[in-house]
């Protein structure tokens, strides 16, 4: 395979792939918590379908991560048998669901990043990564279209919906910055032509987000404070609760299948 010719540290590549897969896994799990609880049936179905797309993408990313790692761990083993400190998702995706507006705001900010990131990854020097990205970017485009549409409808909606959307945006804003900060892993990926510099995605993300927020009559917060740590395994307390729920079955009944 051509990728064998790419000079990149295996551990760094594994790290990068778990960041991609853990983002979609944790957000997918979070969104799936709405199943049966959404405000209307159509939204319930839409949220469950979005979660399904994200979990499907997780199987591709973590499947490849396990392959790269070469220790016999598959996607399931990585999802269900790692503890919180081994997870590499950004803090944004582990934020609690809150109300429908908070869930949507989180989704929109993530979708905008996800789409820009996946688009860049379709040009990855590693063909395995490029093909996963080419598959996932179509789904991300659809998610972005849906979340943009709803952010606009609720932001530019009633007084109550506007107030809640603005509050949701103010609350979650400080969790976004982490996505654009490069570390050694990112630099190794850039050098090998595998992934873009996270900081380079900011301009396009800003363009998408500011356009939608303007349409939604919402104001982007001006605070520059950034919560970070998720991408290197330092998480908020919320991740432990997510894992307790998500991993219970495989922890209590190792190897269970149906």
């Amino acid at each position, binding site marked *: 395979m051509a990728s064998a010719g790419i000079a990149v540290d295996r551990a760094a590549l594994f790290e990068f792939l778990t960041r991609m897969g853990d983002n979609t896994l944790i957000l997918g799990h979070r969104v799936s918590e709405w199943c049966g609880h959404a405000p209307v049936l159509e939204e319930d*179905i839409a949220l469950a379908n979005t979660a399904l797309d994200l979990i499907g993408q997780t199987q591709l990313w973590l499947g490849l991560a396990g392959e790269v790692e070469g220790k016999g761990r598959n996607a399931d083993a990585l999802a269900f048998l790692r503890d919180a400190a081994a997870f590499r998702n950004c803090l944004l995706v582990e934020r609690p669901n809150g109300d429908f507006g908070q869930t949507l705001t989180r989704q929109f900010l993530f979708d905008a990043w996800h789409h820009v990131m996946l688009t860049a990854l379709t040009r990855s020097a590693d063909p395995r990564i490029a093909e996963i990205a080419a598959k996932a970017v179509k789904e991300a485009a659809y998610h972005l279209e849906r979340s943009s549409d709803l952010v606009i409808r609720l932001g530019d909606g009633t007084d109550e919906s506007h107030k809640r959307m603005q509050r949701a945006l103010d609350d979650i804003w400080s969790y976004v910055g982490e996505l654009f900060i490069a570390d050694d892993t990112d630099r190794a990926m850039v050098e090998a032509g595998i992934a873009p510099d996270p900081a380079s995605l900011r301009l396009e993300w800003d363009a998408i987000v500011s356009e939608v927020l303007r349409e939604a009559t919402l104001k982007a917060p001006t605070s520059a404070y950034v919560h970070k740590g998720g991408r290197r395994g330092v998480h908020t307390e919320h991740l432990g609760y997510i894992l307790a729920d998500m991993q219970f079955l495989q922890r209590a009944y190792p190897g269970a299948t149906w």
Partner: protein
Amino acid sequence: MATATLPSIDEVWHWLAQVPDPEIPVLSLVDLGIVREVAWEDDTLVVTVTPTYSGCPATGIINLDIERELNARGVARVRLERRLSPPWTTDWMSAEGREKLRAYGIAPPVDDTAADGRSRALARRLASGSNLTVACPRCGSAQTEKVSQFGSTACKASYRCLSCLEPFDYFKCI
């Protein structure tokens, strides 16, 4: 057995064209365009399948159905391979498949209307509303509206006809 002739590739395609999609049984797997390649490797039949959506829960069942069908046709050794690239698109759905969908009550995909996430396209859509016209599969009216971007499965959206007032599924373009 060692001397038995293997079925031709054309014959295998013909068999696969009779395996229904588990979620939309009116379509065959070949109509859907997800069977990408069929080839013999010695006496093993290798069937290459591409997923529709990454998380489509029918993927496992589809593989099982293919294997079962081919085993029933006398092919003892079957290997299924997954191919991600190029990613599946509704453009690959056969004309016959589109007609079957419409007759079944699902509006077939309108080509070239997939979301592309580009902000300029997004702005245009937001400013003028969706320019996508999905005809009602029951009465043919173009007076329809989107109820939700997702429907009963990941590949569909929910619509409503404003002429005959029936709700219907739209097989969205991707």
